[in-house]
């Protein structure tokens, strides 16, 4: 049995710890015109995303979350990434992030998001990182349904 050598510091990089301790854009904003809630039934993580959409621009992005450090840091880093970006660009970021983590290609992430790349080596933690992004997508799609990380299976 050979397991990949993983270091905790790959998962909990300084930027991740910093964002989990001091999340950016956290809290319900005064103005928003879209919101969505995401839930990971396996570990109980909950995320709520608020958007102020102006035309095709994500004028404001904010979140509330109760979850682990990975979930909080991912939500915080996500808001930094998509804040004041065009809708189309934000969608592309979500897709890129999700693909990078779910295919074990965390190393392809760039910028501050690269700090979350190590998550792709921890299969049980990928959902923690992708939950805020899936929820952002739902908010952009103005889908009113609650997002869960377990869409394929029925909740137990």
């Amino acid at each position: 049995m050979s397991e990949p050598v993983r270091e905790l510091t790959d998962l909990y990089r300084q930027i991740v710890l910093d964002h989990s301790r001091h999340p950016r854009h956290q809290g319900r904003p005064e103005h928003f015109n879209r919101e969505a809630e995401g839930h990971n039934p396996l570990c109980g993580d909950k995320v709520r995303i608020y958007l102020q959409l102006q035309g095709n621009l994500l004028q404001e992005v904010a979140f509330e979350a109760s979850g682990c450090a990975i979930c909080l840091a991912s939500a915080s880093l996500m808001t930094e990434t998509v804040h004041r970006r065009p809708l189309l660009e934000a969608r592309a970021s979500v897709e890129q992030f999700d693909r990078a983590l779910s295919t074990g290609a965390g190393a392809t992430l760039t910028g501050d998001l690269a700090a979350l790349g190590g998550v792709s080596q921890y299969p049980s933690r990928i959902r923690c990182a992708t939950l805020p992004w899936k929820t952002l997508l739902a908010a952009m799609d103005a889908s009113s349904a609650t997002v869960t990380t377990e869409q394929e299976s029925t909740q137990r």
Partner: protein
Amino acid sequence: MSPGTTAPPLDVASIRADFPVLAQQINGHPLAYLDNAASSQRPLQVLEAIQNYYTHDHANVHRGVHSLSHRATDRYEAARETVRAFINAASVREIIFTRGTTEAINLVAFSLGQRLQAGDEILITAMEHHSNIVPWQLLCERSGAILRVAPINDAGELVLPEFMALLGQRTKLVAITHVSNALGTVNPVKVIIAAARSRGVPVLLDGAQAIPHQAVDVRDLDCDFYAFSGHKMCGPTGIGVLYGREAVLRDLPPFQSGGDMILTVSFKGTTYNELPYRFEAGTPHIAGAIGLAAAMDYLTRLGLPAIAAWEAGLLSYATGLLLQLPGLSIVGTAGDKASLVSFNIAGIHPHDLGTILDQRGVAIRAGHHCAMPVMERFGLAGTARASFAFYNTRGEIDQLLDALRLAQRMFA
């Protein structure tokens, strides 16, 4: 759990040699397996019993005229006798093999549930595992019965006066856990059973967390049903037991139906088999039953009082050590507790603790432990839970503490 007074101590070093799975490195560290409340490990004796059965004796049971089928039937029924003796049931007719605790509870919910009418009540507690909540919720939906939930206090103990107050004229069943999987609380089940039975109310005990850690005597308890799983007591997965008092089982309609549970089948009508076969439809998990019996023999050889004493020592050692950590709070501080510690550390989510501990070879559970109402009661998203078995050592608890200190340094 109160240890026996005359238990000879366990030779844990030689016990561990029976569990090869424990002797491995995880992420470069020796494995400290502290997730026994989720599932225990199996000794070689259990693996060999299963291997032996499939190597030499396998055929279908209860129907063949050939020698192998007789042998398989004999071994399967011998396993039932081992279970009977292990829990001191009066008769093998009271031992029903199931897939596990969950199926055992579902059996009672289905079969006993057919008698329930709108307005009848089922009484459970706020510390139940989902498997002792959801079957009753579904039964209530089907029958119009009402689910009553007795509260727990801040220590995670059942509030007995409130429980007694809820035990009323309309109560048709009490279903309560013997030991809480999320909190470790050992319930005063004998008091509860005596009170319920004096009112003619049958009692089901969820014994999944109790049976690996203490001697269970269903006749001494005087319960009507006792449900438990093999995989938490060193037996295989996919096998469990429902003990049912014969006088109660006799009047219950069947649960699942098909082969083996019938006497005669005709399109004019079908008659059902005698106990316990009436409740075992289809080819059973023969190897599972044989493996479970081997696990029971193993535990009996070690001695359940000795197991309880060793685990009580581990619990008090772990509790003392963990409380030294700043910011650590233990969830579940009942006076009578099984060998598990549910806890939180300020500023560190249980899920992060789980990952960091795993990187140091320490396996624990993080989350809601399939007891979301318990988490809700304490206003928590989840806890980290270390649960001990007789093969665990103080050294492994030291390893847990070191890993928790590392987590605190990382998140400082």
